[in-house]
């Protein structure tokens, strides 16, 4: 089944030669606009949000972006290639007469993404956990468990905090007959899931051989990029822009958390890159109710075009201040 080529540049509304910074800015702007928690048209925004995230997942990573650009150059209308593609799609197992092709839908990633940028392929066969078919003939009469299937699932940080129920559908296409069977199921994303965690959906993998049990479907959690926060373990990082005088004199600012907003005191003499910790405002660490922290990372900005009077004041300051950052 040929997959449709996705124009990720169009999704983010940036030109092909956009800088990394432009891509980041475009993503943040769109992600704020379409974030399912803020948008009015929930259903439409959710679709759009997933699309933006997928595009950023590819274009925001220099390695993926290069690969994508090369892919675009060798892509044909029917979804095939002029050159052979680098690797097989995921969730597929080669060999055997009764071979099936699997498509998992509702995970937040398109077939196009799964095929070329999904993580499973990087493990080189690790997505293919069943013993090979050859073994079943050798050990005739043994019941073999069906293979497990793995797929990534896009989870927003809000979902990781509160949990959610997702509708996922699994389509099996018989390679020989072309017959397709679709199963739809609801999967609970438990609160406190972490990046890379695999949610096991029992019995939804490939059928077993000789009366063996079915394999399982593993949905591997992949956090959606958030417009405000970056994630490291259970901790969240928020970049706070400050004016130079705010950093020098200290101030009080209101910063967002995943749930609400908190007021943070910036102490006088705060330097660039300083991390201020807001305890317990991160993601759940485990099911015990403990939570990670929110780190506010200070990012000092300078006025881009100071006016006449402003410049005069800075000049005055430079004459008065004994501060020399390069003095050893």
């Amino acid at each position: 089944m040929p997959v449709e080529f996705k124009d990720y540049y169009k999704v983010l509304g940036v030109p092909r030669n956009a800088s990394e910074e432009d891509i980041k800015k475009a993503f943040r702007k769109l992600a704020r606009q379409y974030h399912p928690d803020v948008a009015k048209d929930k259903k439409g925004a959710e679709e759009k949000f997933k699309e933006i995230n997928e595009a950023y997942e590819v274009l925001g990573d220099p390695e993926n972006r290069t690969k994508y650009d090369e892919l675009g150059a060798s892509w044909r209308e029917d979804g095939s290639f002029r050159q052979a593609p680098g690797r097989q799609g995921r969730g597929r197992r080669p060999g055997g007469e009764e071979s099936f092709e699997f498509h998992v839908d509702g995970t937040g990633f398109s077939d196009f993404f799964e095929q070329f940028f999904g993580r499973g392929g990087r493990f080189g066969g690790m997505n293919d956990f069943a013993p090979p078919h050859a073994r079943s003939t050798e050990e005739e009469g043994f019941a073999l468990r069906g293979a497990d299937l793995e797929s990534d699932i896009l989870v927003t940080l809000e979902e990781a905090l509160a949990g959610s129920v997702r509708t996922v559908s699994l389509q099996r296409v018989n390679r020989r007959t072309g017959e397709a069977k679709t199963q739809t199921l609801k999967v609970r994303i438990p609160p406190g899931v972490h990046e890379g965690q695999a949610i096991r959906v029992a019995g939804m993998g490939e059928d077993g051989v000789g009366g063996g049990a079915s394999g399982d479907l593993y949905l591997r959690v992949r956090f959606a990029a958030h417009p405000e926060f970056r994630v490291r373990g259970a901790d969240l990082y928020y970049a706070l822009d400050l004016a130079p005088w705010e950093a020098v004199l200290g101030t009080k600012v209101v910063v967002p958390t995943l749930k609400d907003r908190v007021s943070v005191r910036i102490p006088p003499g705060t330097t660039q890159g300083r991390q201020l910790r807001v305890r317990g405002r991160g993601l759940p660490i485990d099911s015990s109710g403990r939570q990670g922290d929110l780190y506010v990372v200070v990012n000092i900005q300078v006025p881009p075009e100071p006016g006449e009077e402003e410049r005069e004041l800075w000049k005055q300051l430079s004459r008065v201040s004994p501060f020399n950052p390069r003095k050893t």
Partner: protein
Amino acid sequence: MKALQVFEPDARTVYSIEMVAHLAQVPRRLIVLYYKHGLVSPVRDPASSGWCFDEEAIRIVRRIEYLRSACNVNLAGIKLILGLTQEVERLRQELRFQQRR
């Protein structure tokens, strides 16, 4: 539309070694062997509270089985591969964190 089956895996579910053996279709003694080689670990100290494993352990046992049977890797090789994939995963997450700055 008919009611859909809801899968509610509980992150806290722990499995006995017999259950892991059943779910991963691996003899119990092999799981003990994997434990002795430091490939898979129970959630709590087996000496004080018995052998309890989590979901992740089942996944690891299956991974070990695949490496052993399909790739013909011995236990030392499996230990190395599992360690490396874990490290790659950690580095990939850190890279994503740094790139999104």
